[in-house]
């Protein structure tokens, strides 16, 4: 077996694959953020808490109502998305005419409150959520043992990400959305209910976060802090990809997952900071992000 930089190639392939799996979560989460920022101009700091809510609602459905994982995949984004819609109507919609900073402060505060409430109720040690029976076990790829569930996460994430990109960039609904962001008055004049469009977009973005939460529940412990650390990384991903760029968020999400995975092999101590180093470099060289347009 040949070696690359002193690491056996087999081990390296394994790490690349793991990076891709982690990248799936980054991509799904940063996609939701990019949709919300791109179309609403709101920096949604509640995103991590909404991801956490996704995992918790899946756990609650299973524990209290016996609703299994597959139904949770559909129900949880709808339920958590609905809470997002309520939040948008009651609070966020009042801030559209103000500076970005107000939206950031509001959503950050909301995130702290939501996390605090869950922490109070469920503690921080985490709750168990099993991998569904159909996805138990794994496949030996020769260079590594790939758990079936992780393979499923990658597939689900790729499908959802590109589905969303297609919806927004290639369909008529997406065209309305993009037009409504550019010039809400004009689009409204054509008889399209712009506020409702915006509300639903926020709900959709939140639903994406919740979906990522359901996907994460069986492999990470379901605990109130699970989104708090992740959200910072995901923001860095969005900034690197270019704020508001949907394809940028997807590609950067997967790409940075791989970069982080490789860092864990060569110098694990740096794996927590490598994404921020890249962010600093990108901001220096291309301030609008890799895929962003200069405003």
């Amino acid at each position, binding site marked *: 077996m040949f070696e690359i930089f002193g690491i056996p190639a*087999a081990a390296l392939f394994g790490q690349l694959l793991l990076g891709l799996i982690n990248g799936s979560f980054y991509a799904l989460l940063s996609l939701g953020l990019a949709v919300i920022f791109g179309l609403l101009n709101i920096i949604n700091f509640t995103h991590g808490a909404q991801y956490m809510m996704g995992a918790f609602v899946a756990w609650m459905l299973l524990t209290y109502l016996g609703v299994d994982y597959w139904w949770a995949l559909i129900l949880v984004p709808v339920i958590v998305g609905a809470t997002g819609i309520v939040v948008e109507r009651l609070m966020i919609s009042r801030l559209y005419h103000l500076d970005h900073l107000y939206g950031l402060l509001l959503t950050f505060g909301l995130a702290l409150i939501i996390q605090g409430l869950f922490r109070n109720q469920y503690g921080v040690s985490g*709750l168990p959520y099993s991998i569904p029976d159909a996805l138990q076990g794994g496949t030996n790829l020769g260079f590594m043992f790939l758990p079936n*569930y992780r393979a499923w996460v990658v597939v689900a994430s790729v499908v959802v990400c590109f589905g969303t990109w297609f919806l927004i960039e290639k369909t008529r609904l997406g065209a309305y959305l993009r037009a409504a962001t550019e010039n809400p008055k004009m689009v409204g004049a054509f008889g399209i209910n712009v506020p409702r469009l915006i509300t639903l977009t926020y709900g959709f973005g939140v639903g994406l976060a919740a979906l990522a939460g359901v996907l994460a529940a069986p492999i*990470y412990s379901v605990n109130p802090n699970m989104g708090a650390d992740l959200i910072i990384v995901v923001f860095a991903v969005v900034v690197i990809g270019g704020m508001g760029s949907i394809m940028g968020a997807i590609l950067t999400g997967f790409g940075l997952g791989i970069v982080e995975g490789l860092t864990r092999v060569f110098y694990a101590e740096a794996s927590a900071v490598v994404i921020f180093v890249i962010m600093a470099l990108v901001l220096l060289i291309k301030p609008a992000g890799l895929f962003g347009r200069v405003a």
Partner: protein
Amino acid sequence: MNIATPILAAAMGLAMAGSAYAIDVKIGVLNDRSGTYADLSGEGSVIAAQMAVEDFGAADRGINVEIISADHQNKPDVASTIARQWYDEEGVDAIFDVPTSSAALAVNEITREKNKIFIDSGAASSDLTGAQCSPNTVHWTYDTWALANGTGAAMVETGADKWFFLTADYAFGHALEADTSAVVEETGGEVLGSVRHPFPGQDFSSYLLQAQSSGAEVIGLANAGGDTVNAIKQAAEFGITQSGQSLAALLMFITDVHALGLDAAQGLVLTESFYWDLNEGTRQWSERFAERNGGDMPTMVHAGVYAGVLHYLKAIEETGTIDAGPVMEAMKAMPTSDPLFGEGEIRADGRKVHDMYLFRVKSPDASEGAWDYYDLVYTIPAENAFRPIEEGGCELVE
């Protein structure tokens, strides 16, 4: 007017009250109240401290105790700021608990500088009573040397002598890795390598894969709390335990076992200084504790805070003062005695010694319900449980 009259009256009043005079003591419980160690320390430690004050009957003995608490977020800088503020502005006499070794080492230094008292329960680093020992610090519950000596030695005894470490990248993880490596090598084993992960982590699959390809027989988890829980879960997911490598959770609390569930945790061997179901004394106390802690049983950290506060108050009653010097002297001179750790003592280096226990986690079938998790494998007697005092390199030891 004669000046002697009021003094005489005051003296008589005190004599009639039955105690020398009232002493005001302010105790600060400083720990993680929101992060990964909040369930194993957190509010439970405050409850334990309150129970100690009540059980001691402090008020009846003329000692007026006030307890305050704060969240150090597992950050040494936050812990330092709070400790300084407590000593300088709030009039705190003693700080208790302080999990997270890096934070504990910071509070250790500030307590020495301010000449107050620090009784640590939650942190693990054996440096607290070794290279960085202080005349103002007592390390109560456990330390990395005791864990390594318990779990490390037990694993090597079963014939598993090739190790790879998965280590939390801060003071605690480093100390635990070093102490366990020493035990492994001393008993004829071999350390093949280690990987240091950022704290706190979430995804450990990458590190586990590195451990897998190292060819080690044992993967030593030199981390704690949520990190250990996630690493164990993911080791099962990636088929690492099924392929013959075993995991050694070098520091695991009962709250971690509770979070992991017995399906995933069964068979793990771990070292602790306290288990609620050890004997009649621990059971009675733990049931009272659980009533006040939402039904959750205490960890050894909670037990250590209780026993530490109890011993501290005894020393204050004995000396009639809250000055750090005499109180610490009395604490080290008096043997310790409480229902949770039994009889013990505090050594010159600040190390509290008592028995440690090697437990094995029960299978789901063997468990009778929530919190019935451990079988006792053997007891490590106090004289062998902790690092010999002359080996720690503490300057307080002549």
